């Protein structure tokens, strides 16, 4: 249970970073932290005590496996996270090229 709470604290740190920081790079960092916390929480939910990795073996039959379903979901989620990060970095690079700053207050003021 304490692992769940630590994982939720990690999520809250990412959320705080996403709200408070006005730097676009810091916002990307915050979104990355939240994504890590969510991925870890799913895998924690699927862990079986004393379980083995869900890979069948030819010689020794194993019965006590970890839940494979969260692992399959998170495997796609990690690659999606990379795509999202790349898209955000591309947009950030374009914004920097146009306005020469990462501060979103400054960008809002420069718009008109």
């Amino acid at each position, binding site marked *: *249970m304490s*692992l769940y*709470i*630590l*994982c*939720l*604290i*990690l999520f809250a*740190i990412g*959320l*705080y*970073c996403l*709200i*408070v*920081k*006005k*730097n676009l*790079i*810091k916002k*990307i*960092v*915050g979104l*990355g*932290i939240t994504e*890590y916390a969510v*991925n*870890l929480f799913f*895998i924690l*939910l*699927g*862990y*079986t*005590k004393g379980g083995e990795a*869900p*890979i*069948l073996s030819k010689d020794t039959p194993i019965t006590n*496996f*970890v*839940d*494979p379903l969260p*692992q*399959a979901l*998170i*495997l*796609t989620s*990690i*690659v999606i996270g*990379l*795509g999202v*990060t*790349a*898209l955000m970095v*591309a947009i*950030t*690079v*374009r914004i*920097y090229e146009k306005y020469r*700053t*990462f*501060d979103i207050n400054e960008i809002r003021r420069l718009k008109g």
Partner: protein
Amino acid sequence: MIELHVILILMIIGAVVAMELEDMLSSVIALGAVGIGLTLEFLLLRAPDLAITQLVVEILSLIILIRATVGVSLPRERIATRIGYFVFALVFAALFLFFSYKALAQLPVFGFPIMKMGSLYIKEALAKTGAANIVAAVILDFRGYDTLGEATILFTSVIGVLAVLRIKGRKT
């Protein structure tokens, strides 16, 4: 299970460091350290597929993020935040933690999951698909639609990046 706690606490420290450092390059590298900690957690939680994928994805995302931070003219941009945002974020995070703590009582205890679908997949994976790696059997056979959607999302993201960053056809 003490090692899981230690690595998770180190990840929290890394996240705070990544959030509070002023130098953007150092901040991005601290985020990479958090990702490596996540790789170790996956390995300890018996998810080797995820550990390999997270490790290589972490390297690539670090390269991409460093590309965004290197070469900017203000590497240490100090941006003042308003006090209202600060209070709002603290209250929001505290409320989130409180309600999730309440909700934790409904979750299964750590180490004893509800494997309703998981036990079915484990029982029938070898007979129905012939794959020894159950995770591969789930993502490519039982739940192929998920992977199709994931491929679509990745394609959209690549198209988005190429459209945002294209050089030809831009009026200079």
